[in-house]
């Protein structure tokens, strides 16, 4: 067979195919975007509000999960309805908070939630005295590794707790890596019947360039899927984090 310049060039362009994992992560980003532009989107929620059909988290959750490709978890506490949607392996996280009912008692900003696409997390209960914060949600995609906004929201300040589910390389796996490098900062826990790790960020030493290197506080995390973790974190005490983590389960 005669070799010409095109066949030579063709050989030069041979590459190993992307891994299944990488393809799945990209697909998760797509499904996330679909969910954002679908029935759970801001636009659709505004329309629903105008129609007077959005009356609470549970009703809205049923509507969303019935029609969206990505399961979205909604939590209703004290009359307020909160909706969280998240991402995926790629450094993009979306988080939406549904309209809060006017009667919802906002005692203290204690919790935000964003959840990933596979599997999602559900918050089945919260300790007495806790409610969901509306002032600390992610309003759009975050970029960076991990998302700068994500980290700043995660550790927003004393008393703020976040519940997160992340798939891929964003956020939680960074904490996982940090824990592996800092065994002195890790304690093993049993929260809500599952094994988890408590990472004391005050005792970790990471690369100075890493956002996590400048963070103090605690992280409770556990694996909920092959590439996904649940994480409860923030500037609260480890006991507070454990109590919140006990009510977090993978969504059915």
């Amino acid at each position, binding site marked *: 067979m*005669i*070799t*010409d*310049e*095109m066949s*030579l*060039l*063709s*050989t*030069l*362009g*041979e*590459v*190993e*195919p*992307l891994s299944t994992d*990488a*393809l799945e*992560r*990209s*697909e*998760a*980003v*797509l*499904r996330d*975007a*679909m969910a954002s*532009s*679908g029935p759970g989107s801001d636009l659709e929620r505004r329309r629903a509000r105008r129609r007077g059909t959005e009356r609470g988290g549970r009703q809205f959750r049923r509507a969303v999960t019935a029609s969206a*490709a990505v399961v979205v978890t909604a939590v209703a506490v004290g009359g307020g309805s909160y909706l969280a949607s998240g991402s*995926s*392996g*790629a*450094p*993009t996280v979306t988080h939406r908070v549904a309209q809060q009912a006017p009667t919802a008692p906002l005692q203290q900003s204690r919790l935000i939630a964003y959840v990933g696409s596979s599997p999602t997390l559900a918050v089945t209960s919260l300790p007495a005295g806790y409610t969901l914060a509306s002032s600390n949600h992610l309003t759009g995609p975050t970029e960076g590794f991990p998302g700068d906004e994500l980290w700043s929201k995660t550790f927003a300040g004393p008393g703020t707790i976040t519940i997160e589910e992340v798939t891929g390389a964003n956020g939680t796996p960074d904490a996982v890596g940090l824990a592996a490098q800092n065994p002195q900062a890790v304690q093993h826990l049993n929260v809500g019947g599952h094994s988890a790790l408590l990472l004391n960020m005050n005792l970790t030493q990471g690369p100075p360039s890493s956002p996590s290197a400048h963070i103090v506080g605690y992280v409770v995390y556990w694996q909920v899927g092959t590439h996904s973790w649940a994480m409860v974190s923030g500037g609260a005490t480890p006991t507070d984090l454990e109590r919140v983590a006990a009510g977090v389960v993978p969504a059915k």
Partner: protein
Amino acid sequence: MTSDAELIAWSLAGDDDAFVEVVRRHAQAVGSYLVRRAGRGAAEDLLGEVWVAALRARGSYDRSFAEARPWLLGIARNVLRAHWRRHPDEDLVADMVTLAAFADPWAGIDEQIDGAAMLRTAVAEIPQDEREVLLLVAWEGLNVADAARAIGIPPGTARRYLHQARLVLRSSPGMVALLHNLNSIKEPR
């Protein structure tokens, strides 16, 4: 099999899974396109951006084209350009001609001839649009008409670009000798 165009039409009618099916059909091809030009790590990050951009642009898809791969590669190209605008320190030419270098077709032929390096240098000297047509044909396996569609130029222009690019390659230093050597090697019995 349902065409990509039909699936895109279904997705516009609200069937998200139809669009996911289009994505799955072309994921490896688009992923490899990105790997060749931006490296594996960036490609994995950018692939999701391509799908999201395609999702948003699917309303303008020309459904007279049954297959969506050239369209998706065109979107990947735009995503890649945006990526390089965000990271101006990453040079387009350097990426394109070095990142695919691990596949060395000359191993065992003649270690004294660094054919891959020579070829990469020759490719780098081709004007950008001509090079893009050349590589869409050689690497992505598109015909010239589809390559034209991917980068949004008339097919006649793409044919001219390809012709010019091949001329540059053939006339690059060492290419004649290299092709002569390769074509002189007897197939083992």
